[in-house]
């Protein structure tokens, strides 16, 4: 009856949304329920309630001067449906979808190669990646704006090497922003993919090799399909993560590149229009949940 159980994948893994595998009996009485009451209460009060309030706020009526009164009106949502905000929504989705795709396209072969390195090399890389992960978005934005600037950037290096005629300013721009988003999400993507990749039995790829597939073909025809679920999960995670990025669009993009996150913060903090900010947030959440649902549905169907 007793079995040694497989350790659960980490936070980073696709399976992380599943609870640990309980083997005991059900809890009986208040005494045995006691340990769960505190975390449940904390999550309820400080996560569910704030969410509820935010939802309620999105229907409130705004009064001039930064105040608002309880109401139930859809004005905030109606206001969202103006060309300015709809195009911002479209741009956010496009930008983050693109960032997620580029990021995963880079992270997947990287993680695969990493997983096939020695334990020492893997450890060194992961310590490095975790350190990069802890770089604040502010610092990332600042560093890349320096690297892409005309006065102190990489373009000076190209001039020095004779590859370019004169230094150029590459930031702020759309590619700069895209690269910045890829940079901040790459460590996450690697960490999410890592457990699935290192657990992929090496016999699978060896079998493909003995059957005559080249390394690149093996990767594309065996590794990528075997890791489908992890790849989809990573795409979603990076997409959602970049949707929430607030600083990079301001540091590496031009005003027309500002995402909904920037607009939400702007409305909430500078325009003091919390109801409208809440409405955008709810909208953003619904759209991202919808996209996630579609992605999952498509990937499930693809599997069948």
């Amino acid at each position, binding site marked *: 009856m007793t079995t040694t159980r497989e350790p659960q994948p980490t936070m980073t893994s696709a399976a992380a949304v599943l609870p640990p595998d309980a083997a005991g009996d059900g809890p009986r009485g208040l005494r045995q329920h006691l340990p769960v009451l505190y975390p449940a209460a904390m999550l309820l009060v*400080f996560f569910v309630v704030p969410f509820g309030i935010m939802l309620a706020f999105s229907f409130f009526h705004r009064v001039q001067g930064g105040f608002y009164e309880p109401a139930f009106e859809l004005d905030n949502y109606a206001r969202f449906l103006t060309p300015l905000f709809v195009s911002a929504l479209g741009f956010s989705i496009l930008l983050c979808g693109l960032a997620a795709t580029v990021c995963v396209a880079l992270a997947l072969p990287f993680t695969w190669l990493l997983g096939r390195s020695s334990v020492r090399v893997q450890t060194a890389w992961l310590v490095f990646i975790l350190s990069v992960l802890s770089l604040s978005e502010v*610092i990332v934005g600042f560093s890349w704006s320096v690297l892409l600037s005309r006065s102190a950037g990489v373009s000076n290096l190209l001039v020095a090497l004779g590859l370019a005629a004169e230094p150029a300013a590459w930031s702020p721009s759309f590619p700069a922003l895209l690269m910045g988003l890829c940079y901040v999400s790459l460590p996450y993507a690697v960490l999410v993919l890592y457990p699935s990749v290192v657990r992929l039995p090496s016999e699978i790829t060896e079998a493909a090799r003995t059957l005559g597939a080249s390394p690149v073909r093996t990767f594309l025809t065996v590794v990528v399909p075997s890791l489908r679920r992890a790849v989809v999960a990573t795409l979603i995670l990076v997409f959602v993560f970049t949707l929430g990025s607030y600083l990079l669009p301001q540091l590496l993009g031009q005003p027309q590149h500002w995402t909904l996150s920037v607009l939400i913060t702007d409305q909430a903090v500078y325009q003091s229009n919390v109801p409208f900010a809440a409405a955008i947030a709810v909208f953003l959440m619904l759209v991202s949940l919808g996209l996630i649902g579609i992605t999952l549905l498509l990937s499930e169907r693809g599997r069948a």
Partner: protein
Amino acid sequence: MRGEVLLKRLFMGLVAAFLAAPLVVVAGVSLNEKRRLLFPPEGLSLNWYAALFADEKWVAALRNSGTIAVLAALLSVSIALPLAWFLWRYRVRYARALFALGVAPFILPPVITALGFLVFWTSVGLYGAMGATIVSHGIFFMTLPLVNISLGLESIERETVEAARTLGADERAVFRTVVLPGILPYLVSSFAFVFVLSINEYIVSYMVSGFTVETIPIKIFNSLRYGYTPIMAVVAVLFVAVSFTVFGLMARNGRLLRILGRH
């Protein structure tokens, strides 16, 4: 085969260069002698490192960030530990729902969670208090300890627990003598993860108490906008050094790869 290895090295090298580039920039800027932004740096000096600790406002920001990170990490672990233990110990119908609730704060776009905290703290009249930021961070990051501690619990073999029970240990004694020693490294790493992420977090701190409690990331962003100073690069270098030390130590005791999901 040789070409293959070469290609692999080239690819890994490019990724390393890409990831390391910003580190090179901040390291260079932090050593720059002049106040002006120069890269590559002209005239190496450690002046700005001294300046950081001489500037009261930066020290205050450091203190704020440190306090928030330590307390948020403690709070986070204290919420996650009983929840993870409960889900591991008992078979409950609503386990999935509880677990999903614990994972949700980290999976939503951060700006949404941040706005939720903003309206909540405004409603209860604690907007701008450091305590509000601590609690917000504690909840926001609790996903990591929850998943990490669950992983630690899964690594405890059921038979070991049963052996302790047949040898006379009650629930409390089992927890003290078997469970706790088993998950201790995971508790420590959970604390470290939350600490490092909290100290670098921007949007939640900003929305909850950005104008009253200046944390390091907020201070850096403000200094970018309202007058640049190399001190911000110094801070960044110090933070990376701290993270590197923390994760390096975790790697030394050999658990890092397992925590990250390797068998």
